[in-house]
C-alpha cells in the first residue's frame, strides 16, 4: 500500500468517504491500491496521470469500453491498463439485491472492484480493468442478462426518471419507453456509426427529474393536454394548514394558496377566491409549480403524452445548448412506433448531413430548422420557438411561391 497523507485527510467528515471505501478493497486488489497511489500523486502534482485510451473493446462492439493507461506504469503497474466497462443499467435504476450481488461478483473477479453507481449518462460503470479481462467480463455479464452501454459516436445508453413506477405525475411510461428505445437501437448503440454521440433521456413530467432538457439530444418530457384535476376539498385543507405544502419537504408549515400558488403561476392563469381554486387551463404552461406544492389537491390531466425536444449538449463547440421543442405533443403508447420512426429519421438525416463530431443540435443550427423539419418529416409549429425571428433575413423556396400561386395566404 502506498502512503497517502493527502488522501487520508478525506477520511474524516460526515459525508461518505470514497477514500475509506477504496481502502477497503485496496487490501485485496493491487489495482485499487495503485489507484490510491496514483491519486495521491495527482493530489501532490495537481495534474492527472491518465493517458488517452487506444481502441479497446469486446468483439463485434465498437463501444461500451473506455480505454485508459497510466503515464507512470513502473510505479503503478496495477493500473497500467485501467479501462472502464459501461454496463447498461436497468430502466429507472431499480435492482434486486440478487442482481447487484451478481454484478459485484463479476467485477470482483474481472476488475478492480471499484464502480460508479452510476455514471453521468446512467450506466453502471465498472471502473478499471485490464484488456485481457474485457472479453471474459463481457461473457459473464451477458450470461446473466446484462449488456454494455454506449460510448463513442453511437447511440448512448438512454435513461429515465422513476416514472409510473413510483411517481403520481408521470404522463407516460418512462421506464418502458427507455427500455424499448434501448432495445430498438441496440445495433446503433454498440456499433458507433453516427457523426457523434446521441443521447435519449425520458422524464415523466416537466419537473424533468433526469435533466433531459439539458443532457439529451432527444429529450422526452411528459405532459398533459387537458385540464389539471382539482380536489377543492384538499385545496381548502392546504389553505387551512391541515396538509403541509410540497408533501412536507419545505421549511414552510402552511400554504397561502394565493401568495404561494396562484400569484406565482407564471401565466397568471389561476385564481383563488379564498375558497375555490380556478384554472384557465388553456393558458396553463404545465410548469408543475401548483401541482408540486399541493400534490394532494392537484394532479395532471388524463389526456397525456410527451413533448419531444431536440438538441441539448455540453458547451463544446458553440456553447451549451438546451433541447428545444420539435413536437409539442405525441401520444406515448407501446410499441411507440411514431417515436421510433422519428428518432430513426433524425439519425438518418443527421448521418447524411452531419460532420464528424457534430451533435444533431449543432447540425440543426447550421442547416436551419426548415432543413431539419423537412428532412425528418415534421411541420413548423409555433411551440418550437419562444419568439419568431427578430431579423428580416428569411428565405423563400420555390415551393413557397408555388403554394402562393395555389392560393396560400399569410394572414387569413
Amino acid at each position: 500500500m502506498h502512503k497517502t497523507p493527502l488522501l487520508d485527510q478525506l477520511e474524516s467528515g460526515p459525508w461518505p468517504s470514497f477514500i475509506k471505501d477504496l481502502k477497503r478493497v485496496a487490501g485485496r486488489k493491487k489495482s485499487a491500491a495503485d489507484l490510491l497511489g496514483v491519486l495521491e500523486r495527482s493530489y501532490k502534482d495537481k495534474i492527472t496521470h491518465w493517458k488517452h485510451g487506444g481502441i479497446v473493446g469486446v468483439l463485434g462492439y465498437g463501444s461500451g469500453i473506455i480505454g485508459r493507461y497510466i503515464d507512470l506504469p513502473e510505479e503503478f503497474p496495477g493500473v497500467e491498463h485501467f479501462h472502464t466497462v459501461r454496463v447498461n443499467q436497468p430502466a429507472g435504476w431499480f435492482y434486486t439485491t440478487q442482481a447487484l450481488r451478481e454484478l459485484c461478483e463479476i467485477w470482483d473477479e474481472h476488475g478492480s472492484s471499484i464502480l460508479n453507481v452510476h455514471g453521468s449518462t446512467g450506466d453502471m460503470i465498472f471502473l478499471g480493468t485490464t484488456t485481457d479481462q474485457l472479453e471474459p467480463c463481457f461473457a459473464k455479464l451477458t450470461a446473466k442478462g446484462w449488456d454494455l452501454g454506449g460510448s463513442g459516436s453511437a447511440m448512448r445508453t438512454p435513461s429515465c426518471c422513476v416514472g409510473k413506477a413510483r411517481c403520481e405525475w408521470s404522463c407516460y411510461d418512462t421506464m418502458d419507453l427507455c427500455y424499448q428505445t434501448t432495445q430498438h437501437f441496440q445495433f446503433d448503440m454498440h456499433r458507433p456509426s453516427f457523426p457523434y454521440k446521441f443521447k435519449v433521456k425520458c422524464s415523466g413530467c416537466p419537473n424533468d427529474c433526469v435533466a433531459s432538457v439539458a443532457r439529451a439530444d432527444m429529450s422526452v418530457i411528459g405532459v398533459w393536454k387537458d385540464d389539471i384535476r382539482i380536489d377543492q376539498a384538499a385545496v381548502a385543507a392546504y389553505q387551512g394548514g391541515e396538509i403541509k405544502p410540497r408533501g412536507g419537504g419545505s421549511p414552510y408549515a402552511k400554504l397561502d394558496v394565493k401568495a404561494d400558488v396562484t400569484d406565482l403561476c407564471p401565466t397568471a392563469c389561476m385564481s383563488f377566491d379564498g375558497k375555490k381554486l380556478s384554472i384557465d387551463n388553456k393558458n396553463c404552461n404545465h410548469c408543475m409549480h401548483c401541482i408540486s406544492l399541493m400534490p394532494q389537491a392537484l394532479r395532471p390531466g388524463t389526456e397525456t403524452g410527451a413533448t419531444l425536444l431536440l438538441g441539448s449538449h455540453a458547451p463544446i463547440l458553440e456553447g451549451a445548448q438546451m433541447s428545444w421543442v420539435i413536437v409539442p405533443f405525441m401520444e406515448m403508447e407501446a410499441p411507440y412506433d411514431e417515436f421510433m420512426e422519428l428518432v430513426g429519421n433524425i439519425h438518418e438525416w443527421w448521418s447524411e448531413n452531419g460532420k464528424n463530431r457534430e451533435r444533431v443540435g449543432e447540425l440543426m443550427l447550421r442547416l436551419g430548422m426548415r432543413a431539419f423539419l423537412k428532412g425528418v418529416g415534421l411541420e413548423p409549429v409555433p411551440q418550437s420557438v419562444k419568439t419568431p425571428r427578430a431579423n428580416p433575413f428569411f428565405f423563400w423556396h420555390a415551393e413557397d411561391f408555388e403554394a402562393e400561386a395555389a392560393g396560400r395566404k399569410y394572414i387569413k
Partner: protein
Amino acid sequence: MAERITDIGPPKFDKFLPPVIKDNYGKWKYHEILEPGVLVHVAESGAKIYSVRGGSGRLVTTDFIKDVCDIADKFCDGYLRFTSRNNVEFLLTDQSKIAGVKDACKKMGIPLGATGHSVSNIVHTQGWVHCHTPAIDASGIVKSVMDDLFEYFGSHKLPAQVRIALACCLNMCGAVHCSDIAILGIHRTPPKVAHEKLRHLCEIPTTIASCPTGAIRPHPDKSIKSVVINDERCMYCGNCYTMCPALPVFDAQKGGVALLVGGKVSNSKTPPMFSKLAVPYLPNNPPRWPEVVGAIRKILIKYAEGANKWERVGEWVERIGWEKFFEVCDIPFTFQHIDDYRWAYDTYRTSMHFKF
C-alpha cells in the same frame, strides 16, 4: 463463438420491481415526505411504498454495494434503486421497518436526506481517478463540499431545492451547465505542443479542425510536421488534446475551479436556465479545496437569506439582478464575467433595467 450473446440490452426493469409497484404501476395518487430522506407514495388503491433515501459517494466499491444489499435484504425484501443523482433508495412497504433502515444506514455511514428543500448529492465526474483531461479532481472536491454543507443534505431548511454539480473539464460530463451551483475545472493556459510526439501520434488536419476558435495552424516549418498554437485565441478547452495527446493542456499552477450559479432544469415557475459565471477562478487546492468550499458556502448562505419562498438560486438572482448578486456575495466583477463567445450579444444589457 456460436453461443456468444450480444445486443440483448439490459434486463427488463420489471424483473426488479417490488410487488407493490407492479400492482400499483401508474396508479400512484400522491406522496408525502415524512422526514428528510423518507418518502411515502400512496396509490389510488391505498397501497403505500416507503422510500428511504441515502447519500453515496458514487465512486464506490463492491464492498459498499454488498453492504447496501445487506440492508435491503434485511428490511426491503431485497428491493432498492438509485436515483438520478446517485443516491440510494431503500424501498419498503412495512412502515415499521423504516427505523431499522435508518439505524443500519447510520451504522454504515450513509446519511439520509436529499428530499425536498435540501442540497442533494453532487452530480460529478471522474477527475484524477480516471480521466485524461481534468483540471481538477472530482470526488475529493465533492467530499469536501458535502462535508461542509452536510447540514443541508438532511434537512429542508432552504427556500427551494439546491442542486450542485461538478465537471472536471469543459466537456462537462457532469452537465453542470444547468445547476444551481456548478463547480467547473478549468485550464487557463494553452496546450504545450510536443512536436516530436505529435508527428507520430496525431493527424494534423483533425487536430486543426478540433479547435473551436481556430487557434491551431500547421507549423510554418513544414519539415517539422507539427502545429503551432495562437495563444491569443486559445481558451484552453482541451478539445485538441482529446484529438491529439501531444497537446497537453495542463498547468499545475494555473489550473483551478470556476463557479457558475443559477441554473435549473425543472419548468417549475420559470423555464430551465443555464448556470452563469459567478467566480471565474479559485485555486486548485487539494486535498480539501478550502477556497472552493468557502465560496460555495458563502453563496448558499446569501441565497438562503435573500431568496423568497420557493425561489431557486437562479430565480433569486434574476429577481434581485446580477449586479446585486455580485454585491451581496462580495464577488468582484471581472472581464471574464462578460461574455465574448459566439452569442455574447444576448447577454448584454440593452436597457435601463439595472440597479446602481
